[in-house]
């Protein structure tokens, strides 16, 4: 099973579902996938963290890079399903200001109209 899966939801929204520990290895896979999707014009993105137990700065860098390129292309990236510990890392670094963060994937999908 690939470390990061994705699928197209409704309205051309692409949901990315990493699973496990978001250390350097998984972050690299997430970065590759997000940049590939964005280059393909798929810039309405949800990253669902429900299955992510751990987030290191390598994961944050992948998210920052994806936010920069999606916004440059007129799209958006929304983060969903963060556990309190994963969210704490975003808050400690101040990056929670950079992203729209919602409790669940369903709420993330509702943000796109």
């Amino acid at each position: 099973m690939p470390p990061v899966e994705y699928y197209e939801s409704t309205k051309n929204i692409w949901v990315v579902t990493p699973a496990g520990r978001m250390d350097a290895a998984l972050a690299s896979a997430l970065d590759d996938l997000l940049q590939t999707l964005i280059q393909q014009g798929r810039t309405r993105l949800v990253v669902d963290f429900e299955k992510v137990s751990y987030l290191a700065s390598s994961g944050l860098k992948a998210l920052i890079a994806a936010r920069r390129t999606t916004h440059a292309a007129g799209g958006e990236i929304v983060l969903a399903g963060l556990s309190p510990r994963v969210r704490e890392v975003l808050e400690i670094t101040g990056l929670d200001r950079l992203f729209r963060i919602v409790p669940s994937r369903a709420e993330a999908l509702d943000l796109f109209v």
Partner: protein
Amino acid sequence: MVETTLLVPGRFDRLESITDFVARAARLAGLNESSVYHCELAADEAYSNIIMHAYGGENRGDIQLTCQCEPGILTIIFEDHGRPFDSGSIKAPDLSGPLEELAEGGLGVHLMRQLMDEVKFDPGRDQNRVTLVKRDHSRVP
């Protein structure tokens, strides 16, 4: 004091064994689960920095990890023989500036400093050392 040491090749696929080793030591020191998680994350950042910056990539040298456990205090020491690299000289990201101009560099060191009570970098010609300390403030000042 209980001291445990682990010597591993500098490879990202060893990250989980590194953080597991640190988590066991943190629990042995009596830290709470939130602090255990902070120690795991900080160790991840320190180890990754050594691979990327001191060795300039994977499989270029070994990294020695030592955990010193005292009641309510965990000291984590990383030692490598890569090029002298002072992570302490890396500036923290400027979070007060425009978000679009935020640089990704320095996030790991910034995170380590936020998570731990002490973070010390000792770059050297023959050996670099990174020391991280976490205290249970309900037990020790």
